[in-house]
């Protein structure tokens, strides 16, 4: 599409649009990075500065203390580990359970389809705080540890999402593919596993990423379930428990530093999945 020699005006317009989109999406994040490199005095400076500057001399002076602090606190590092476990397992569980259900809902004939679809959606239609009390009662009664408990409770919002998204994509696939596979003697499940699943790879990966981030960012459930088990705290909880030197002081710089640090692995994950996995999966489908 970008071909300067053939269509210079069009290419420039396209690049301009790209630039606008990038600035719009990334500038607030830049502001977070900028603020995370400031001391409290630099943060409170008026007017605010586009890069960290010394309050007196106005020289460029980034402050790395916020980053050092968060890595020195064991909470944050442990939180990263817990978040990886919880979000990964919740996503994989939701993806597998959801894809099974989605295949049935999208491609098989049985009664009560629409109703099932809405019942599954109903799981996630209440505000989180409303179901918290009931959910807490269940989770504490189930003979699970804190982390498995969290993973199961996250299915409340990840499962409806994966089910619905995958259902819509299964529906999209032409029915002929299934029929021709059945003619070849494949069982419906083989058709599903060997043919349809690879075809929906882009959806599967996207859906997984979005569900992963939802689980990664979840806060209220995690705060409540891990209150008595500090070892199981996830990143959002660890960040929320950052404190200043004194009670009431908001550790703005450290909070933003942590947010920056936490965003990076997610972006890396997207990079890996978008390029390698999608292509790998689609290639597999073509071969099969």
């Amino acid at each position, binding site marked *: 599409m970008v071909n300067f020699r053939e269509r210079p005006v069009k290419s420039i317009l396209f690049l301009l649009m790209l630039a606008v989109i990038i600035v719009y999406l990334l500038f607030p994040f830049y502001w977070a990075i900028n603020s995370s490199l400031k001391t409290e005095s630099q943060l409170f400076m008026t007017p*605010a500065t586009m890069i960290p500057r010394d309050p007196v001399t106005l020289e460029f002076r980034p402050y790395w203390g916020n980053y050092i602090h968060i890595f020195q606190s064991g909470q944050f590092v442990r939180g990263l580990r817990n978040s990886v476990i919880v979000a990964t397992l919740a996503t994989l569980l939701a993806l*597998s359970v959801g894809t099974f259900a989605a295949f049935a809902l999208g491609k098989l004939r049985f009664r009560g389809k629409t109703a099932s679809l809405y019942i599954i959606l109903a799981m996630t239609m209440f505000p989180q705080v409303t179901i918290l009390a009931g959910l807490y009662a269940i989770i504490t009664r189930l003979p699970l540890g804190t982390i498995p408990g969290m993973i199961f409770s996250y299915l409340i919002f990840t499962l409806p999402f994966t089910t619905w998204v995958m259902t819509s994509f299964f529906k999209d696939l032409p029915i002929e593919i299934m029929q021709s596979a059945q003619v070849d003697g494949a069982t419906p499940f083989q058709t599903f596993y060997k043919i349809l699943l690879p075809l929906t790879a882009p*959806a599967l990966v996207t859906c997984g990423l979005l569900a992963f981030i939802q689980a990664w*960012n979840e806060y209220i459930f995690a705060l409540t379930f891990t209150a008595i088990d500090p070892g199981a705290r996830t990143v959002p909880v660890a960040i929320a428990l950052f404190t200043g030197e004194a009670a009431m002081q908001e550790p703005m710089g450290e909070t933003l530093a942590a947010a920056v640090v936490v965003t990076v692995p997610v972006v890396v994950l997207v990079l890996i999945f978008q390029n390698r996995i999608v292509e790998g999966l689609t290639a597999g489908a073509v071969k099969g």
Partner: protein
Amino acid sequence: MDLQKRERRLAYKLMAPAMVVLLVVALYPLGHVFYTSFTDRVFAGARDAQFIGLENYHRLLAVTVEELPPVIDEETGEQQIDEETGKPVYERPIRVLPRQPHAYRELTTFSLFGSRYVLGARTPNFIRAIGNTLYFTIVSVFLETVLGLLIALVVNSEFKGRGLMRATMLVPWAVITVVSARMWEWMFASSRAGFFNMLLDRFGLIDRSIPFLTLRSFQVPAMIAIDVWKTTPFMALLILAGLQMIPQELYEAARVDGAGKIRRFFTITLPLLKPAIAVALVFRTLDALRVFDLFQVLLARSRYSMASFNYYELVANRNMGLSSATGVIIFIIIFIFAIIYMQMLGVEE
């Protein structure tokens, strides 16, 4: 016949895990909310809850209209005129609205056929919260869909660095929600320590800093702007996945038939994207209707969304019954939206 039976049996088997999860994790909490919404239960209260029927719903939704009688000047026998504003004076709503059996408060006043009326509600804040949330939802979901589609189309075209672009595009969605709300609060700060006041000041557009978050007409639009920033990537990515699944052969065929780019977009791309867009819309709307963090962090109790009202009712007032009822109302509104989308986009067969 046999095949159909086998298919049905497979379907039930495949549905089973999801249903088990639903039963174990969701059934009790959900049922609990419905049940509690008919009681006067106190959050962590020592008293036993009483069944009170629809009282919570009445309390949340009841409205009344009363006429405001003019204030008569005793000397002239005519209606008093306010000296400052020059407008006729009517009785204050607080004197007119009923107090028994339930107290009503002013929601708004309006004039009709020469008389002045007051619209009262038992819980004006919740009625306002419904308004705020619907306004927020409709505008932000609309903008997110349009922008998301645009971004998805751009990112779907071939260019160098496309992979990197797809990753950066996801950054706003990946920033932890709790922190992103705080970050925006800081950017909207009412002094020049905030980014927006600094920027406006640098370009000489303002004399005094603007307290953005206390300007009532600015509050919900600000929430919309932040939400659009944060969740457009979600839309874009889901639509992108839809785009990637459209077989290239269809475009080839259309090109051979001589269809232009725009025509191809409307005859191939958009119809085939419908299911992806429908699902994205359902989940965005569902999240938007439950918007909580943004309102709680940036507007606290100066302006409510339905979910932040629900939160404060539960945590600050410990009114679990009432808060459950707000949850059920949110639930019903979401259901209505979901059905409308599925019908409108013809996704259901």
